[in-house]
């Protein structure tokens, strides 16, 4: 068995605790005003969503436009559970999260099955269709409040719980990606035929990626519901799925730290632009287009490469100096 307490793991653990301590200190010293404190939970939830979608889009290489669908299924399942069970919070919320995750994972499995036959744009459209079906069914299901929304969800989410769940999500997905399974998933992205020829069970890994991504999206949905206290089907529309996708793509495909950073930026940016509220969406759109154009501009890329290679060269020089 591999050693669990390596230097790298310890450093990661310290970083996790340090970030939490920083958040805790900022909260208690009154650094955050109400607005920025209210942003902490959505940031955590969006990071969970972005990281889980990253598994599908960045590592498996299948475009999913229905991530909000998984999120909404999990959210409704978990919130219905807490509304109808009268258990103490410490029991109720973990169970609700588990239930939400499992229900979403079941849907992930169901959507994963067509993914075995379809690929590329056709699969993207099936996931989009799935998201829309979920939304219009929820809109008409009296049991969960229909289009008026599901009210009276206890507001359990706070930044501690969300932070813990976020860290768990990142650790699980990062470990999955860097494991034997993760390498198999990446090989499917790079070349399906070759990986099939190497004896990788493509069906199994595709389904696994869908189930895992849906599971964590479901948990994020449960936390989302318990943060706002109300769930409306209209929040989980096509635009929400796109927003999550934008986080993944902006952070860089196949990069988990990138997804985390992009999730933070995309959650904070609209709030930071609140002063320009009328122009908010316009600026957002322009930033999106400009980033894509810059990222694919040969001149900008070579500039970036030079910048980074300089830094890498300097670091290399330092290392050799230390070695002497």
């Amino acid at each position, binding site marked *: 068995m591999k050693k669990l307490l390596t230097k790298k793991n310890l450093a990661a653990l310290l970083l996790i605790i340090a970030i939490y301590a920083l958040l805790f200190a900022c909260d208690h010293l009154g650094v955050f005003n109400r607005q920025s404190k209210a942003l902490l939970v959505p940031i955590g939830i969006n990071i969970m969503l972005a990281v889980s979608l990253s598994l599908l889009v960045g590592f498996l290489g299948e475009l999913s436009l229905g991530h909000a669908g998984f999120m909404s299924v999990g959210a409704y399942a978990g919130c219905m559970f807490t509304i109808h069970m009268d258990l103490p919070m410490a029991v109720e919320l973990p169970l609700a999260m588990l239930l939400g995750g499992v229900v979403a994972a079941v849907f992930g499995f169901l959507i994963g099955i067509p993914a075995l036959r379809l690929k590329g744009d056709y699969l993207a459209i099936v996931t989009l*269709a799935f998201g829309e079906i979920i939304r219009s069914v929820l809109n008409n299901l009296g049991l969960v409040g229909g289009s008026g929304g599901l009210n009276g969800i206890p507001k359990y989410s706070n930044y501690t719980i969300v932070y813990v769940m976020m860290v768990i999500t990142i650790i699980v997905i990062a470990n999955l990606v860097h494991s034997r399974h993760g390498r198999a998933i990446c090989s499917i992205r790079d070349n399906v035929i070759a990986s099939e020829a190497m004896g990788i069970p493509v069906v199994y890994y595709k389904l696994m990626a869908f189930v895992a991504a849906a599971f964590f999206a479901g948990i994020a949905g449960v936390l989302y519901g318990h943060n706002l206290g109300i769930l409306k089907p209209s929040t989980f529309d096509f635009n929400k799925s796109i927003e999550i996708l934008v986080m993944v793509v902006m952070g860089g495909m196949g990069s988990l730290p990138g997804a985390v950073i992009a999730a933070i930026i995309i959650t904070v940016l609209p709030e930071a632009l609140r002063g320009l509220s009328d122009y908010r969406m316009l600026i957002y759109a322009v930033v999106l287009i400009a980033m894509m154009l810059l990222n694919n501009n040969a001149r900008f890329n070579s500039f970036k490469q030079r910048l980074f290679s300089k830094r890498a060269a300097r670091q290399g020089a330092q290392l050799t100096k230390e070695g002497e």
Partner: protein
Amino acid sequence: MEFLAQIINGLSLGSIYALIALGYTMVYGICKMLNFAHGDIIMVGAYTLSVAMSTLHFPPFLSILTSMVVCAMLGVIIERVAYKPLRNASPLAVLITAIGVSYFLESSALLIFGSTQRNVQSAISFPSVQLGELNISGNAIMTLIVTIILMIGLNWFINNTMTGKAMLAVSEDKGAAQLMGVNVNFTIAITFLIGSALAAVAGVLFISSYHFVGPYTGAMPGIKAFVAAVLGGIGSVPGAMLGGILLGLIESLAKAYISTQLADAIVFGVLIVVLLVKPTGLLGKKITEKV
């Protein structure tokens, strides 16, 4: 009789979807990209029409022409500015850019016209026709006739003119077409021009039936038309026509006989079933994988 009326409703709704789907499918066939901003071109077309008619007091025909020209120019400009630099980029980068363009158009419309929906009188109105017990609205007839004419015209254009043949050649193999002396950039620009002009017509027809336009008017018809294009087999022009008409029929029959609210779910459900049985859409070409 009721059933026949629903069929006609479905045909007219479906032909609007088909017109929008044509734009999606032509662009996909040539650039292999999903132009998500296409739905919002409908909205721009509708706004242009309403401004031309009620603010500038243009006669109806001139207003429609203006709307088509504005949309066609817009389509070409979007291609030039946003998509052309990304021609060799990953499909996802192009997709995100298209989404950015879509947000850009929506939020610009929101800034210019505000969030309240604008009431638009229809550009052309036909009297409704009474056939026995059956009452067919003039709009439905007009939509059907316009769509049929445009589709025949487009088919003729693609198969019989040099530019149309160039479009087919580029969609088959961009590199080879370039070697044969086809001007690829010009052909792509023409594709966007035609697609956007068709979207403008769809926008005009759409608001002559619904009479309202807002910044998000184009979003849902856009998604439905996209679904229609995939249903018919994306990249295939007859497929987009078939897919659009089928989608309209399914939607209006589902609304009439099953449930108004669940109609969308049924439409998308049919799509999933069709794709599971025939993964490349109804008329899509099967691409064999080569190692």
